């Protein structure tokens, strides 16, 4: 697999086309809406996170935005991960925060720390991004937005 093909795996291009969680839902009682922007390339995202009534779980994440296939698929994969790992009750916010931290560490590792599929699901396909320092911000965009949203909600 060439460098380019490991960066743009089919899974990534699929997510970029069929974006999970795309389209904002109506804001709920315990929701926060965050706008993030990458000033370098103009990519942007508006992400809305809704917490469970107790405020300790991620009930739903939806988003809108425009950008490169890395940023779009990364947002889509994030939603997929939350849905799959969170099950019906939603993922505990503490777990989500931990995942974001781990994701950041791997992406900043310049290829040294891979994202394992067990933990990150489809998002593991983003491992290749960490070798492209200029693209790390693209992949982080939605995750940073969620981090901020969890803080605010």
């Amino acid at each position: 697999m060439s460098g380019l093909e490991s960066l743009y795996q089919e899974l990534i291009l699929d997510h970029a086309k069929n974006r999970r969680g795309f389209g904002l839902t109506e804001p709920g009682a315990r929701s926060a809406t965050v706008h993030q922007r990458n000033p370098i390339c103009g990519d942007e995202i508006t992400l809305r996170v809704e917490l469970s009534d107790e405020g300790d779980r991620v009930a739903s994440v939806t988003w809108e935005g425009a950008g490169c296939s890395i940023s779009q698929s990364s947002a889509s994969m994030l939603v997929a991960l939350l849905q799959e790992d969170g099950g019906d009750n939603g993922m505990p916010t503490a777990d989500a925060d931990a995942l974001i931290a781990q994701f950041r560490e791997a992406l900043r590792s310049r290829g040294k720390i891979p994202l394992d599929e067990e933990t990150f699901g489809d998002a593991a396909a983003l491992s290749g991004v960490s070798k492209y320092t200029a693209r790390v911000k693209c992949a982080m965009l939605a995750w940073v937005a969620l981090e901020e949203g969890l803080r605010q909600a």
Partner: protein
Amino acid sequence: MTLPFDVDAARADFPILETEIDGHPLVYLDSGATSQKPRAVLDAERDFLEHANSAVHRGAHTLAAEATELFEDARVTVAEFVGAEPEQLVWTSGATAGLNLVAGSLGYAGRLREGDEIVVTEAEHHANLIPWQELAARTGARLRHIPVLDDGMLDLHAAADLIGERTKVVAFPHVSNVLGIVNPVAKLVTLSRAVGALTVLDACQSAPHLALDLPASGVDLAVFSGHKIHGPYGIGALWGRDEVLEGLPPFTTGGSMITTVTLDRAEYLPPPQRFEAGTQPVSQAVGLAAAVRWLSAHDLPAARAHEAVLERRLRDGLRSIDGIRLLGDTDAAERIALQAFAVDGVHAHDVGQFLDSRGVAVRVGHHCAQPLHRRYGLTASVRASAAIHTTEEEIDTFLDAVSGVRGFFGVGANSTGARA
């Protein structure tokens, strides 16, 4: 008969052009962002630093005298390159600094007030836009803009209406860094002069590609950057007519621009020193002089003809690829070999990454021209920009790579199978 331009000889002067990217020879089509430096520039700077380096305009020692001479000779050389006198050439750290100097100085001088107007274009680089926004905000002046037509040309009818007796400043790019179109300087100068407005020319993109005679152009002030014209970073120039520079107070202050200083006040030297506060980028001035000397050593008409061939090949080639939309696609104006475009269904960033995997370096994003991109309904585009060392084969490599983009990303007609 003119001999064709010897592009291989020019290339041989650039060490970086030997780079390989992922096994592909580097095709550097990002000269519009920053240019590469020929060996002569690297050598001139190093030679200065190894043999003459010391503080200029100060001190009686031998090195200082040598350094001062090289520094002031550099001013003469660069001034000549744009048809000017050395006293009219102010060193700046770059074009952005030059434009801020002009806008800031006009502000400090109280030359603008409520009701006055500043006119720019819709095709402005942020460097020739935001300083005027700030000046307008500080003085109560109004910032207006000349619209860009669909084909990238400035709307001169609108310009004629906009530029009126309230207009105090008209600032515009010689060549837009997105559209590549040479703007009608003479017409804008005529409109501006008729109402007594000061004209400010952003010559960043023209200086590397067109013969400049700034005094003859009719504008009052002009700026350009060294790093875009095969010179070092950290140096650029502001050119101004004598009487215009004389009328401007300093923007920044400090050492080397004064005559008498007491604890309470300072008196300033005449231009250009008045605008050159602090230790100047001395070795960079020497390097920039080497750059324009390197350029001038070539058969420049032949080089321009070569670049014109590149321009046509670039534009025609892109036009013939499916799903490509060109920004500023017109034959009605002179152009430089720089072309921005969007690829249907593929984000500019992804296009850039794909081209990079073929060794082709282009710029992606808004190129510091967000308003212009917005005008075309885009947030980002891809820009290929050539230089004197670019070959036709490189343009072909680029075009070939661009043809593969939509297939790779699974967009458009032959989307499937491309990655099989």
